[in-house]
C-alpha cells in the first residue's frame, strides 16, 4: 500500500491492524502509533507518559514484540499486527493471567503505568526472561513506576510466569 511507488506523502491513508481488527484512517505523517491508538481509534488504555521512550507507559506489541508506541510512526506500523492492553482479555472478557496476577499481587497504586507494565510483562514471560527476580527486574527495567510498586510487580510477573 505504501511500498513500491515511493511517493512521499504528508497526509497518509493507511490501515492499522489492532487487536485483530482493521482500522482505515487518514492522518498526518507525524502522528505516532501512540497518538493514532489514543486519538484516532479511541483506544486510551495505552498511556502517554514521557513521549520520549523513557517511561514505557505506552508499551504495545508490534508483530508480537514489545515496543514503545511513542517511538513508532503510525505510518511505519501500517500492515503490522498491533496488540494493546484492550486486546489481552479473551473473547468472553476473561482477563489475561498477567492482568489477574497484577490484581492478586496488588502490583500498582495509581495504575497509570499498569497497561505498559502488563504488556511488557506478557512479552517478558513469552521471551523466557523470568528465571530469577534479578532477570525479571532487568528485563522489566523499561517500565517506570513512580509509585514504586516494583516488588509487587516482580511478584506478579513471577506468579504469571509460573501459571
Amino acid at each position, binding site marked *: 500500500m505504501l*511500498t513500491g511507488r515511493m511517493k512521499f506523502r504528508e497526509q497518509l491513508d493507511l490501515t492499522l491492524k489492532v487487536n485483530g481488527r482493521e482500522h482505515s484512517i487518514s492522518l498526518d*505523517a507525524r502522528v505516532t502509533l501512540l497518538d493514532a491508538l489514543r486519538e484516532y481509534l479511541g483506544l486510551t488504555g495505552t498511556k502517554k507518559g514521557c513521549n520520549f521512550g523513557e517511561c514505557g507507559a505506552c508499551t504495545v506489541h508490534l508483530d508480537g514484540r514489545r*515496543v514503545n508506541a511513542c517511538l513508532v510512526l503510525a505510518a511505519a506500523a501500517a500492515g503490522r499486527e498491533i496488540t494493546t492492553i484492550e486486546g489481552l482479555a479473551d473473547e468472553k472478557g476473561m482477563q489475561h493471567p498477567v492482568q489477574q496476577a497484577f490484581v492478586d499481587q496488588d502490583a500498582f497504586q495509581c495504575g497509570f503505568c499498569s497497561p505498559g507494565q502488563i504488556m511488557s510483562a506478557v512479552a517478558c514471560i513469552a521471551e523466557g526472561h523470568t528465571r530469577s527476580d534479578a532477570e525479571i527486574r532487568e528485563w522489566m*527495567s*523499561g517500565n517506570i513506576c513512580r509509585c514504586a510498586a516494583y516488588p509487587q510487580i516482580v511478584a506478579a510477573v513471577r506468579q504469571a510466569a509460573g501459571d
Partner: protein
Amino acid sequence: MQGFTYARAAVVSEALAAGREPGTAFLAGGTELLNWMRLEIAAPARILDITHLSGLDAIETLPDGGLRIGALARLNDVALAPAVVARVPVLSQAILSAASAQIRNLATIGGNLLQKTRCPYFRAEEMLPCNKKRPGSGCAARDGLNDRHAIFGWSDICVATHPSDPAVALAALDAAVITACGAGGRRIPINEFYLPPDAGQDRNSVLEQGELITAIEIPGSAPCSIYIKIRERESYEYATVSVALALDLDVWRRIARARVALGSVAARPWRLTAAEQALAGLEPGAAAITAAVESGFAEARPLAHNAYKIALGRNLVLRAIRLVAEMTP
C-alpha cells in the same frame, strides 16, 4: 515537530536514489529520529522508511570466524544470536546493557551507531548554548556542569561523549561499517567512523548524505572478551564509564594481544592504544599490569567535574582484565 513527508522504500537502489536528496532522512528503528524531531535537533523534510528492505537484517558467519551483521538487525536479535554470544560475548553484553527491552526491539545495530550525544545541554528543550545544535552559540558544558562529559579528545567547541554501548564493543573488535551509496559504497573501520568533536553540526560521523549503512563486519572472533558498564542505576541508564576488553592469551596464558575501548569518555569509543601496547607480553596477574593500564590515561584531560573518570576507567579496565583472564576460550 515540523511537518514531513513519508515513504517506504522497497529496494536498496530506490532508497539510495531518494536518500541523496538533501533533507531526506532514513528511518530504521526510529528511536532516535523521532526524538530528534521533537527536540528540533533534526527537521528532515522527507522520511524514507527503510525497514522493509529485504536481506539487510541477517547475521552471518564469515570464513575467518568473524561475523557480518545486517544493519537492520534489531539490537535484541543481535545480542541473543548464538553466534554473537559465542564468538563476541563483548558485543552481546554491550547490547543487553543498552536501553530497554522495548527500545532494543525497535533499534537497529546500524542506527545505534548514529546516536547523538546525551549531553543535557544538547538535548535541552530550552535554547542553551550548544555548538552541535546551533553552531557558534558556544558550549554550555565547557564551563558548566560537565561531570558526565569527555576526558579524552574534546575541544572548546564540544566536550560531549558518544552514548552508544555497542559502538564501544565494536571499537574493541576492530569492526568495519559497510555502506552503500549511489557511487558504490565503502568499508569504514569503526575507529575512523566518528569525526572529532569540533567537526560541523550534524557531522558526527564520516557518513555523507544518502550514504546507507548496510552491515557491520567483525573480523575474527573474541571469545575472551567482556563489557562492563558503570552507571548510576542498575539498568536502563547510560554509562558513566564503560569498558570493552578483548584479550588473546598465549599458551603460557600471557597477554598476546589486548584490545581495550572505553565508553562515555570521548566523542567516540576511545581505544587505549598505549595501554594495549604496554599490556602485551604481561601475565594478567602481574604487578606491572596496573602501570600498563595507567599509561593509557596519560593523555586524559579532565574537565572541572570529571577527573573521577580517570580512576573509574582505570579500575574498570583492571577489573575487566581480571575477569577475562579467568575465562577459557
